[in-house]
């Protein structure tokens, strides 16, 4: 905990939660995205429709789940569908607004690696793999991505493209036939990145309070550019912080 009274991770989760609107239909990845979505639902978005890839449609868990198929999600779902139905009808069918993803590595065009660090056949670190993310990134109308901003996470070249953000040159989505528009924002522990309409790459549009331009540059593996008028995100409100901490405690 820093002297601000909250951690940079808490700032990241709270910032991400603010992106979720009350009427959103959100496909939620496990971990930080799930925590942020559950926070949003308890605060400003009580009617958000949360979807987990295990098949739970519009579920309203009291505690954030540890896994995408926890009994808590199943008990509180509007409906439960099979995994093929989830991926064929709901996701590929284009019936989900927002895909909410984590990542291990991301590049300047918001493409994501969750597969391996190092060579695929002789990996330095074998990560879990794509799971649902490949097609979530493709077929939701928008995606939100959240991960910690370090120079080893925000890399110039990905070791492996598991999921497409804006594609290799930053403009491949239409060519690939994706109906979705791609990442709306990448939310980090230092601030928010969005796609530049000119260069098509991710630029820093917001910094969290107390974070410097230098710090953000040093924590990025490519020459990071900043929006002309860079904004500062709003500090966590007391009710956001206390609820987030309560939710985290419930997961343990």
């Amino acid at each position, binding site marked *: 905990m820093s002297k601000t009274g909250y951690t940079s991770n808490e700032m990241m989760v709270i910032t991400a939660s603010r992106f979720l609107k009350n009427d959103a239909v959100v496909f939620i990845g496990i971990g930080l995205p799930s925590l942020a979505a559950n926070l949003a639902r308890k605060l400003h978005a009580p009617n958000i429709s949360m979807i987990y890839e295990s098949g739970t449609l519009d579920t309203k868990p009291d505690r954030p789940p540890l896994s995408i198929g926890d009994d808590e999600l199943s008990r509180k779902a509007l409906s439960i569908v099979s995994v*093929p139905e989830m991926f064929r009808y709901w996701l590929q069918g284009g019936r989900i607004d927002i895909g909410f993803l984590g990542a291990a590595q991301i590049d300047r065009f918001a493409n994501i690696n969750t597969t391996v660090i190092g060579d695929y056949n002789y990996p330095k670190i074998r990560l*879990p793999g794509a*799971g649902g993310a490949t097609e979530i990134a493709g077929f939701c109308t928008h995606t939100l991505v959240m991960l910690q901003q370090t120079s080893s996470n925000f890399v110039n070249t990905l070791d492996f493209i598991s999921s497409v953000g804006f594609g290799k040159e930053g403009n491949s989505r239409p060519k690939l036939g994706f109906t979705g528009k791609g990442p709306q924002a990448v939310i980090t522990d230092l601030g928010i990145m969005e796609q530049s309409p000119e260069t098509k790459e991710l630029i820093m549009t917001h910094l969290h309070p107390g974070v410097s331009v230098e710090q953000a540059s040093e924590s990025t593996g490519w020459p990071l550019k900043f929006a002309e008028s860079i904004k500062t995100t709003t500090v966590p409100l007391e009710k956001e912080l206390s609820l987030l901490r309560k939710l985290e405690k419930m997961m343990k």
Partner: protein
Amino acid sequence: MTEFLSLREAVQKYVKPGISVAMEGFTHLIPHAAGLEIIRQKIHNLSLIRMTPDIVYDQMIGMGCADKLMFSWGGNPGVGSLHRLRDAVENNYPHHIEINEHSHAAMANAYVAGASNMPCAIFKGYRGTDYPGVNSDIRFISCPYTGETLTVVPAIKPDLAIIHAQRADKHGNIWMKGIIGIQKEALLAARQSIVTVEEIVDQVNEKQGGTVIPRWAVNVVCCVPKGAFPSYTEGYYNRSNDFYVRWDEISRNRQRFLDWMDRFVLSTIDFSEFMLKLEKQGYV
């Protein structure tokens, strides 16, 4: 005719070295007891298939049961890595395993194709990713009607599927409820099937809601109460999130893992003794 066997007899009869086995379950209803019985019987050279390999596949891989693994997400949900899977892929310990990696959408579609007796599945996955470059099973075709480029993957047709369900009736019809995942497709895609259940009742049917799998698609039913632990069976017991967290520490170190498996799995005669031992040692 569906047979009713003990889990030990079922594994002896159906799980042969070298076959492909899909033991499915999407967080819910994971057939843990069956996996442990395969480890107890020291059956090796298996081609394991599972969308979300979790603790039970980590155990089987760490104990050397698998030569191959087809999967789409291999982690300990909400906790971190599967350390035994990683040790096999990164360091060939206990031996090399061949990886056939997919996305969830690909495997889900491939199971549907298998169950439908199709040679392949057509969908819109993998576009723009590096997966086609590392998995030659992922190919592309042109739609004969629109010209659109579509992705194809071969159907999954396992030699054997093993799943866990809430109930079977005395005729062998299976009843399941809650998150049903990909189990029905896996079972119908497979040549043979074993279903472990919490209990055997007089009759299951459509009036009870849920999903019913008719008996002629099921070779064997085994009654194994708590057989999904540390996963869960809706209506019977909750997921032991605590055990998933503890598995991280147990599996991180090779010797610690082997000692634990020896103590709790190889030294117990069946799943009920395994559960008793876990309870005595404060794991449950």
